[in-house]
């Protein structure tokens, strides 16, 4: 049974949103979905680039009231 987990990385500079995502991705099972919340402008491009390179699936990316919501499915 796949799970969906939200990672609240808003207003964080270290270790930062992508590093948080990588941490949670290591803990997740294949098929799980992670939703990353971030206020860092770079997240919108950094996360898809990493996901593409590793081979995870970007499901969605949108900015709501200044907060990026990125949903990624663990594919491997």
């Amino acid at each position, binding site marked *: 049974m796949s799970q969906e987990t939200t990672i609240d990385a808003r207003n*964080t500079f*270290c270790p930062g949103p992508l590093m948080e995502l990588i941490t949670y991705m290591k803990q997740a099972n294949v098929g799980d979905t992670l939703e990353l919340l971030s206020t860092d402008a770079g997240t919108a491009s950094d996360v898809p680039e990493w996901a593409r390179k*590793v081979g995870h699936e970007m499901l969605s990316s949108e900015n709501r009231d200044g907060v990026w919501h990125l949903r990624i499915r663990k594919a491997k």
Partner: protein
Amino acid sequence: MRILIVGGGTGGTIVANNLARRLAGEIRHGGVRITMLSASDRHMYQPGLLYVAFGQMMPDELYRKQQSLLESSIELHIDPVEEFLLDQKRVKTAGGHTHEYDILVIATGSRIVPEEIPGLAEGGETFYSEAGAVKMFKALRAFQEGTVAVVVGVPHKCPIAPIEVTFALHDYFTSRGIRDKVEIKYHYPIGRIHTIENVAKWALPEFERMGIRYETLFNLKEVDAKKQIVYSEEGTETDYDLLVAIPPHRGMEVIERQALGTGGWIPTDRRQLKMEGHDDVYVVGDTTNLPVSKTGSAAHFEAEVIAQNIASEVKIGAPVCEYDGKVYCFIETGYDSATYAMFNYENPPELKAPNKAMHWFKTSYNKMYWTSVRGLL
């Protein structure tokens, strides 16, 4: 009021000492009792391990007796917790004892797990333990020429360590007069050379000036110790003659075994520092799942907030302050210069130019830590 602190690292020790002072009257009159359960009778100054790896400190300089760091009113037991019975407000220890509490502080910290990366323990040097730091120094000392690869596991304690060890490697080989025979290759998990944008912006020209090569988006997948190759999750590989690794970390086994938090990290309210769903349980330092640096500095500032709030709960029945995400990190930029990064949830760090004075301040802090952890600084 029984206050139980589980863990005798930086966070737990500062909470205990700060509380003992704030509640000295209540303790004297028998209304409050502070008990600490620690896994070790020795307290290690962990940032000193980097210096041990470069022969600049000896291992015995890193330790003090835990009892010697605590206010005399604190009851210390060297007896790690085996079981947290949060619904019953008690814990069971390895020694078979049960301790009941009214307020619990979990400060169990984190541990390195190089075994999560196949081949890393066999092929890599690391300075995140005393034995590892000494072994790394001997490997550096024996190294005459070739490629040194720096790789970084996720998550890891002390996020500035990858940069610091890289600068230290440059200065170490320069001081031995063999820098021209050593290639340093730095690998980092995200798309720039440090997670803090201002650190990355500052360090990049320094890397170029020092001739340090780098590769970003490099997450450790596997090490082939025989072929001396590291493979990344991103599908790239790098060869090495000496591998220096920042190992991945997890929270302590007891936290995972008790299902208190995935990866051993306990879900924690980022401002109140209470365990989610448990009003009588505080979490401090590496043990939290907070999106802040796993450093002694974060633990220190969190501990002050926790101690202040527990004391005010005892005195007026309510907490009085919140953690704002404050972290202050020294950044050693080589053998004789340093700078620092200070930030919180709202304000990113603004880096100052490295200088010798800040390096000597850090060198002094290596001794002042023992005052700091006593809650005096």
